[in-house]
């Protein structure tokens, strides 16, 4: 964004702060929408206050990376709820998440990035994944039918049209999501391939303003995908999907979230799980990519959905996005705890998402609450996999 564009956006905010609450009418309930504002309290943590900080950075008034500056800028999950609410009450479109990413870029250029985020660059440089892990994710599934029965399925079929891009978090922090996705593909008899040398997609770097560091990753992945010959890439991570859709060059390949892909399969299950679940909209999937229906229709096939008060465009963020989990874990976990309470209030026995970041943070918060709290945390693909039998049918 050009400086004039940024300042123009800032000058178009009238500071009504309606961006900080869920639509009040017609239910007339006061529900907060901005996690960082709610947690930290100072104006600096709400969108209008952050814009004033950006103005002063651009106008050269803020000339050092104070503790408050770094916190106000980086303790924001970039969830985009403020933007969605602003759109509802305004004819002027202020693209807030883009603006705040731009602010982070501005800080990174000045050398003011957080140590925690700089550390991610280092890890990626060394290991090509955001967690600095040196081992390889190994899918534990063995083929159970066809002429390769009994053989391990580490990389799928090299010439398959479908490529499953696993992503760093599902590889190294919540592998049960990758396991479930691969299991589903196998059960449905869908030929797939995995990337021979999958690198981090660069999302975390872009979201934390470290744009330059992401370029090499993107170039590598583009090259690998072109070489793979895949026609369709499936993601279980909405962050990766968003990055591929919005930041990568057009590779002439269809990019789909797992829920979009599976919704197209018209999966048929014999027995629904006897469980009440709430669906948590991941920010990248919902607000960023507009994917609200597919996860719900898929989930409705396998479980009973209970509705929470804050959903879809006005969903409460789980707290782990925008580099918050790595830098401000207490805040990230508080957001997740709030969400768990909301699910419980809705009468859910489990909170289901469609994003490895969400699952990791929500699960961690649930574990801290203790087993007595009794709320399970899953990704949709895990529940689908549980319901799907070998040789699973499609409707």
């Amino acid at each position, binding site marked *: 964004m050009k400086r004039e564009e940024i300042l123009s956006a800032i000058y178009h905010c009238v500071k009504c702060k309606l961006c900080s609450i869920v639509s009040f009418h017609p239910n007339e309930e006061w529900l907060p929408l901005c996690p960082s504002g709610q947690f930290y*309290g100072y104006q600096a943590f709400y969108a209008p206050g952050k814009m004033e900080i950006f103005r002063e950075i651009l106008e050269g008034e803020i000339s050092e990376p104070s503790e408050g500056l770094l916190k106000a800028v980086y303790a924001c999950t970039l969830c985009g709820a403020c933007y969605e609410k602003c759109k509802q009450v305004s004819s002027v479109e202020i693209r807030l998440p883009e603006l705040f990413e731009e602010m982070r870029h501005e800080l990174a250029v000045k050398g003011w990035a957080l140590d925690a985020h700089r550390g991610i660059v280092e890890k990626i440089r060394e290991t090509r994944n955001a967690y600095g892990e040196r081992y390889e994710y190994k899918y534990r599934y063995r083929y159970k039918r066809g002429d390769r029965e009994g053989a391990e399925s580490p990389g799928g079929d090299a010439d398959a049209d479908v490529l499953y891009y696993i992503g760093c978090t599902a590889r190294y922090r919540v592998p049960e999501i990758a396991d479930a996705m691969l299991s589903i593909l196998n059960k449905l008899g869908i030929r797939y391939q995995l990337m021979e040398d999958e690198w981090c997609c660069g999302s975390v770097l872009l979201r934390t303003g470290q744009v330059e560091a992401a370029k090499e990753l993107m170039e590598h992945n583009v090259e690998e995908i072109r070489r793979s010959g895949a026609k369709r890439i499936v993601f279980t991570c909405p962050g990766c999907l968003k990055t591929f859709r919005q930041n990568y060059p057009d590779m002439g390949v269809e990019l789909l979230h797992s829920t979009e892909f599976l919704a197209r399969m018209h999966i048929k299950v014999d027995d629904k799980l006897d469980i009440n679940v709430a669906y948590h909209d991941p920010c990248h999937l919902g607000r960023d990519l507009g994917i609200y229906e597919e996860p719900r229709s898929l989930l409705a096939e396998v479980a009973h959905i209970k509705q929470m008060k804050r959903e879809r465009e006005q969903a409460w963020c789980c707290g782990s996005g925008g580099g918050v989990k790595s830098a401000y874990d207490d805040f990230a976990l508080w957001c997740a705890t709030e969400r768990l309470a909301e699910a419980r209030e809705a009468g859910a026995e489990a909170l289901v998402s469609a994003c490895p970041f969400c699952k990791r943070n929500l699960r961690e918060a649930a574990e801290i609450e203790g087993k007595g709290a009794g709320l399970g945390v899953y990704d949709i693909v895990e529940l689908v996999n549980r319901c799907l039998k070998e040789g699973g049918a499609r409707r």
Partner: protein
Amino acid sequence: MMTSRGVLSPGVIKELQAIVGEENATDDVAICASYSRDQHWHFVPPRNPACVVRPASKEEVRAVLMLANKEKIPVVPYSTGINVRGLAIPVHDGSILLDLGRMNRILEINPEMKTATVEPGVTFGMLLEQTRKYKLRPAFPDAPLTVSVLVNYYLRGIYQTAAADGHDHTISYEMVLPNGETLRTGSRALSSMPYFRYGVGPDFAGLLSAHPGTCGVVTELTAKLYRLYDHRQEYFIGFESVKDSTRLIYNLMHDELATSIRLVDNQSWLRGICGTFDYPYEELPKFVLCVLVEGLPGLFEAKDKLVRAHIEESGGRVLELPEAFKRRFEEESLGGAELSCMVFHLRGNYHCIGLYGPLTLAARYYELHEHTALEVGIPGDHVYFYLDPIYNFHGQLCYVELDIFYDGSDPRFGEKLREYNRRQFHRLLDAGIYGWFRPYAGIIEPTTERIGYLAEVWKKFLRIVDPNGIMNPGKLF
């Protein structure tokens, strides 16, 4: 545009942190920057406070004020963060911004007394969420329901969405002064019953109110609540001029028939009241009177019948608008302004002059508005208007708003607006008004020139309650 701020000594910051807790007082430049500007920045330049302090109780407020008074540090009170007209932007370097957002308790809802007692951080949304359980509601301003109840009532700035609520919603309050003393107004001074405004001698609640943080800090306020009825009916009646509509407004007000009566132009507030930009409003008459009737069964039907008779003889055109528009008009009028705030974003910023005056001068106010705007180069399609009459209609009391919605990023437009103000304040005073919506720098100067010795008394009064001049200095005199 450089933003000033000034600094406070590390010793003062430490003392403030000792009062409110380390995490609730800061001189961090970025945190302070977030309080530097409001929507009125074409008139009040940005200025950072030197520190931001977030008390959680009246005891903490008292301690902060006493420290500031001793050190002669300016204090700018600030409630929920939706500020207009630069009232919470410091005038002086080295100011303390007193963010009262943490004081957000609803202290009492008394359905029997039809009152609510709140702290400054309570918003209209928070309050309605609770009062609706008793089929009661507060009187709403046309400000976002994220604004502070206490501050809006205390500043006497209720440009109401419901004419039936009358004008004064404040019953009594408690104010902490710079010297640490506490003033309690009305019956609150005598007992634990804060339900009567005129408890002791003069109307101190009136005397102290409408000061933009220039006397002390209001820490509790008791306000009136109003009934919610199940039976409702809405009408939209079109007129081609302000003048054509006044007969109907007069009749409805005189007979006390409607709860909400709002004359708006078809390009700005009507969109907000209907809650969407997506409608061919330009095909409607230029002005639309929005009328909401409600009441108990029996009374409601009788009132509705009379309202329809008045509408029929008014010469206005009854508009058939979508049902959803009616629902939103109800919600925005009786449940707090949310979608109607979309008008503030018509072009990205808004300017308005809010005043109280008689219905007899409504057409004249509009004429002046249009004339002055065109004279200074503001295009005609940027000129907007609305009028809310107020019960019991003595003096034909109306709140009138002369609006200009504009692109806030255009500095040349800012210059035009400043010129508009310079001319318009005088012209309106010459035409005759009852008073301004609320006093603020810019509008107060030409006004005090005209009020004779009252201005001196006012200034002396402020020196008594705030002898060191620490309370939001520069916002009035």
